[in-house]
């Protein structure tokens, strides 16, 4: 069905409409400007404004897509889903639609007599992904249902959906936004390229469908453990700072201290636990949360009690980190909001709530926001500098920004060895030196013919 645009209405009406928008912008600007100054948000505003040209360029350049790869992946995922349905039938003797909550509930809770965890608002036993994830080890059929749904999400949200969004130039021009996420991170729609899982194999396969143009290559630079470094900077924890300064393997060293072992005796599981705690303290991890994560990773013997001990030991080593978390909560309680290092505000009136879950969420947000928003600011400051460098050097065109994925910058670059080396040097310089922290900022870059081939 054709859709009308401004050419289809009387010119007078269209002119009136267009002019009114400009007029409204002019009138609203001083009102907002005054409040930006009153709230001390000027610096933060300028930081966000400085990345607009690069983000706009990301949208206009777009990402080249290998259409065939995505179509093949779509049918591959359909086959995998059929295999999962078959596997369910083989185990329980009946065929179900794993996407149908009533069918799944009937199978799990009536036929297999598994213990229901949660009820839906309509009174049914919940079969949400989270609930199934917690029941994964209770029966082999649960794993197959989870897998089926995962494949379905990949297929329906990405494969053919992305093919439909392809522009005439064979590229996807994602709708990037700067004003949706409270921590200052970018958001992405149509399609949500930031939502493609990073670590999983299927996510990697999906990302392989994004390819560089002729005589071009993909380049990716990411800030190494930037949120942990922000934590070290803001908490001023001497142990954490010295470990970053000495370029130690933070998680292994933490595991050695927590579990009272020598560094070389730390097992992979213990290192993983220390890593989960390290990242988890930013978002206020609890012993229950850690136990769930360890169970997901297949680590045995990590009950809530041992997880609780590990978290307590972690705070015994990084005492200033614990103090920092308390300070963040105190700041939220005192002002009703917290600010990141760049001045960005997050209102958290819930810290005073007498409803426990509202209070707990607000307290968790108080440090989570301060760390993640500050880390995002480090990348935004660097992006602004990098953009100025590209413009002043006249290399825009030889290098094009494609996407900013959390702490990573994805570029399309001329496939010329000399230029790649030149770019790598510049990128590392601006990413590591634009902002100064109490610990060194590290970044690393990698090149590859497509998004999936880049090193994690």
């Amino acid at each position, binding site marked *: 069905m054709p859709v009308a645009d401004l050419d289809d209405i009387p010119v007078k009406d269209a002119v009136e409409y267009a002019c009114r928008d400009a*007029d409204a912008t002019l009138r609203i600007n001083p009102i907002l400007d005054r409040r930006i100054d009153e709230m001390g948000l000027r610096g933060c505003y300028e930081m966000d404004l400085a990345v607009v040209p690069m983000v706009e360029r990301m949208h206009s350049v777009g990402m080249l897509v290998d259409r065939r790869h995505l179509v093949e992946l779509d049918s591959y995922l359909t086959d995998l889903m059929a295999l999962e349905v078959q596997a369910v039938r083989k185990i329980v003797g009946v065929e179900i639609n794993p996407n149908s909550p009533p069918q799944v509930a009937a199978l799990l809770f009536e036929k297999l007599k598994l213990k229901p965890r949660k009820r839906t608002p309509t009174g049914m036993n919940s079969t949400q992904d989270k609930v199934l994830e917690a029941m994964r080890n209770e029966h082999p059929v649960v794993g197959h249902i989870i897998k089926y749904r995962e494949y379905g999400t990949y297929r329906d949200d990405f494969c053919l959906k992305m093919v439909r969004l392809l522009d005439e130039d064979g590229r996807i021009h994602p709708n990037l936004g700067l004003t949706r996420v409270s921590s200052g991170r970018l958001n992405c729609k149509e399609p949500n390229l930031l939502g493609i899982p990073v670590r999983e194999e299927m996510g990697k396969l999906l990302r392989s469908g994004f390819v560089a143009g002729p005589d071009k290559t993909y380049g990716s630079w990411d800030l190494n453990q930037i949120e942990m470094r922000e934590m070290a900077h803001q908490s001023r924890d001497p142990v954490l700072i010295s470990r970053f300064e000495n370029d130690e393997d933070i998680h292994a060293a933490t595991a050695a201290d927590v579990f009272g072992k020598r560094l070389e005796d730390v097992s992979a599981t213990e290192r993983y636990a220390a890593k989960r705690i390290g990242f988890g303290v930013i978002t206020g991890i609890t012993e229950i949360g850690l136990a769930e994560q360890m169970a997901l990773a297949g680590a045995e013997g990590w009950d809530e009690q041992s997880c609780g001990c590990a978290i307590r030991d972690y705070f015994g080593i990084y005492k200033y980190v614990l103090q920092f978390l308390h300070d963040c909560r105190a700041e939220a309680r005192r002002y009703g909001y917290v600010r990141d290092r760049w001045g960005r505000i997050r209102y958290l009136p819930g810290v005073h709530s007498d409803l426990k879950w509202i209070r707990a969420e607000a307290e968790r947000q108080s440090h989570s926001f301060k760390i993640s928003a500050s880390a995002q600011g480090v990348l935004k400051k660097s992006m602004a500098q990098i953009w100025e460098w590209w413009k002043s050097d006249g290399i825009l065109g030889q290098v094009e920004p494609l996407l900013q994925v959390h702490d990573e910058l994805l570029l399309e670059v001329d496939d010329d060895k000399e230029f790649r080396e030149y770019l790598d040097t510049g990128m590392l310089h601006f990413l590591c030196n634009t902002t100064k922290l109490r610990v060194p900022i590290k970044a690393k870059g990698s090149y590859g013919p497509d998004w999936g081939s880049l090193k994690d």
Partner: protein
Amino acid sequence: MPSAYTKPYVSRGTFVPGEGPVPCDLMLIGEGPGAEEDKYGRPWVGKAGRELWRYLFQSTHRTRTSVYATNLVKYRVPEDGDPTPDDIARDAPILAQEVQDVAPEIIVCLGRWSVRRFLGDVDMEVCHGIPRLVGHRCIMPIIHPAAGLHSTEFQGTIAWDFEQLAKLLRGEIEPYGEGGPVDERPNTDYFEADGFTMIADAAVDTEGSVRKPWCVSFTGTPGMACCNRIGGVDFRHIVLHNALHDIGVLRATNCSYDTFDDTMIKAYLLCVEPQGLKALAKRHCGMEMSSYDELVAHANRMKAHQYLRKVLGWLNKQSIKEQSASSTTSSRSRKRTSGRGGRKSSRMRPKGMIKSRRP
């Protein structure tokens, strides 16, 4: 304090009257009782109520004993849905009586249904936290505290609204008139002109897309703006709303600029303002603006009609072709072909058309 208002003849759950001192300078009006209120027969005793008293105390240092609290409807709405016009009309006399007896200086309306009872068909996004004078009473629209339970993002906005209430009580802000902020430039001068090539400072907006730009409009004087269809304008400093969209269209129309501002980013950073230009302009400047969808609605309908006429005409032609082709074949094959074709075309053609072609 128990209410003197008696239960009317309709019975559906517990009658939940208002409570608080009578008279009182501050009256809070919510939407309706929830499960807890229905159970205890008292207003604002559930989770949303606990949040309400906390917000109120933190901003104004007032407690539930020093305000009169009630609801728009006095019975719990089934499944906690929106109150229907019948629900509101049923309890309107009780509420009117309460307002008359309590005689508040300020009425705090919590949630859109309560706000609409006093301010008409307004959008919460536009009016929350901005007091208005209706008759001799001040109406303060505030987002319902239950919204903060469903999405923590709302909590900041609710807290800000209560902060505005505290300022109102302290006399630090004045209420607007009944219609809210007034458009100071109701008589505008918007025109099309392509003669400008260099503008110093202006607020700029673009219409169309990068592929198909329609115009660049700009202004440096409130109430006056110019629409340029050919582009090629050099600006020094521009103010945009959603620069991520406008920058591309400006480039496509060969317009240049040295520096820019973005009002959408400003609204976003303030955390408590709507990000849409229309909501912002109405909220702070009293400007009425039509939406794009409203603007092209008639043209869209016309296009849809044209398209459908075209498709139906094509289907009509197809069916005539099929019938003439079937009449030239042998009687046996004709019988077979017309059978298939008849079924096929009847699926494709609307029923009315087939009927009209029959004798």
